[in-house]
């Protein structure tokens, strides 16, 4: 997952966010794929705001959640959740906090 935040002065721009909790759950396997993990948890890391999960199974449908409450108190944006197909080779899930 890659986490971003829209700056208050430039709401159309994006700045990376460090330390957002990300978690994923495989919903269904479409065909044979790589990897051996059906769930993952972690935190995005600065300065890019990226958290990679190299062992997560690909060629599968995943639900991925980004929880900004780990770094904001009180959290100004809700937990973001996306469901996507992840092809062979992997995919990127972007979550942007817009206040």
């Amino acid at each position, binding site marked *: 997952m890659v986490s*971003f*935040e*829209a*700056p*208050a*002065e*430039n709401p*159309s*721009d*994006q*700045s*990376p966010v*460090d*330390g957002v909790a990300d978690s994923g759950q495989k919903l269904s396997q479409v065909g044979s794929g790589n990897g051996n993990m059906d769930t993952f948890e*972690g*935190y995005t*890391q*600065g*300065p*890019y*705001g990226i958290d*990679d999960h*190299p*062992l997560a199974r690909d060629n599968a449908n995943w639900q991925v959640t980004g929880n900004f409450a*780990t*770094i*904001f108190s009180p959290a*100004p944006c809700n937990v973001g959740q996306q469901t996507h197909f992840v092809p062979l*080779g*992997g*995919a*990127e899930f972007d979550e942007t906090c817009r*206040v």
Partner: protein
Amino acid sequence: MLAILGELAAFLAGGCSWGHVRDRERILFSTIGTRLFQDYVFSIRPNGSGLKAVLKPEPNRSYMFASANSMSGPMLVTVHELAPGNDKVEDHLYFWSPDVDNWQRVLPGSAPQGPGILSPDGNSAVYCARSVGSPPETSLRVVDLRTGESRELVAADSFKGLYLPSWGVLGKIAFIRTFRSGGLRTELLEMPSHGGEQTVLVPPEDGAMSAAYSPDGREIVVWMKEGLEIVALDSGDRRVVLKRASIGSDYSFRSWGMGGLAWSEEGQIALSLLKKKTGESELWIVNADGSNPKRIYATTAGQILVSQFIQ
């Protein structure tokens, strides 16, 4: 004779321009891929010709960012690579000599490290060092590349982020500091590279996102609320080079915490913009006087991250 033939070849390959510096100048940039280990380092001429892959990803390794003072000289490269155990990915700083393809770790693997840029003399580098903790903290550190000794330049603060250092030829380092107060705020600061007092160059209300020094170190170009602006460092005078409104509301600036802008000896500024409607990441060039803004390259395979102009 060989030198003359080389110049002729460069002249023909460079679109038949007699501007020798411009012919030799290239923009160094990386593309942050949309999949794991799909991050490349490229170079391209400012006219958009001659795209060259400088570093191509490997199965368990890719290249997030590179900094260099010349194409043939050593490069400071941020390598994104699989950690022992194969279950996580870490960033490590390497010093790469392209002529002999020699890779050398800059810091021990256990030391906090992230992307960095070379000093103008190539003897040092400033880099982001992220410690593991909750909340995470990032400091800015300077490493002497001859001895491997590292020192803290700006201490970590749990409530403030430190990003995007830029090193000017007059011995100053500029960087973006972020904090939260009714949303994410950003400010641009400058300090001597050997440490000392920090000066605010762009206050939070102007929303600085990325900056790069001019070749003479007397000005700095900044992407901020109004668009691309140049700040004179002695007087504080500012002028808008590229108005955000003039390029349209479909464009946004996506920071990656490092790089983002570059300023050439020839007076051109390079930046990357994200076209929201198509998802294309675009590399743009504009003259420092604001004239002739143009898109020179675009891709959907990753997000362009401008590093610098090199020869």
